[in-house]
């Protein structure tokens, strides 16, 4: 769970920067930042489950 929180913090801080530097209205920046944050989490979950089923040991 702690690893997930660190990943979520990383996603949040990165999304803030992406949201701020993107061109457009403030509303667009907010929605873009939230979208990037959601994508970070979604990709992490998908990759996590893929790696879980891979016989890496």
């Amino acid at each position, binding site marked *: 769970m702690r*690893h997930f929180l*660190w990943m979520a*913090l*990383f996603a949040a*801080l*990165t999304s*803030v*920067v*992406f949201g*701020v*530097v993107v*061109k457009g209205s403030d509303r667009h920046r907010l929605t873009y930042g939230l979208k990037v944050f959601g994508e970070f989490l979604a990709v992490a979950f998908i990759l996590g489950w893929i790696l879980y089923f891979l016989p890496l040991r």
Partner: protein
Amino acid sequence: MVAKQIERSTASTPPRAWWIGVAAWAVPGLGHLLQKRWGRGLLLGGAVWGMFFVGLALGGHLFRVSGNDQGFSIILQALPMVANIGSGLLYIVCWLTNTGFVEQAQRVTYEYGNTFLLVAGLLNYLAMLDAFDIAAGRKR
């Protein structure tokens, strides 16, 4: 035609934009604050500073090229060092005080820390370019 466009855009860049760019690199968030973009400056600065200090707290380490590195090893150190240098004075102060350059690979969060530190520098490069573009009038 492309050459003309590049020439025109370079010629129209005010000198102040370059200083803003340097300030934005040196102190994350300062480039926007100097242009009275308070909200953006605080958000960018807060994100980069926060990411940098969280990275240090998690046991991440900063990269530098030392005299012992040779051949391929130099590239392996130099590329992440370029990313770390993006943090500006934060990196330089750590370098002067020898803080954060010791590897703590035994810590569980070591790789997280490295990633936070690397990405903090890279994000500050983005923030620096944004501040530069605003100062140059290419962005609002």
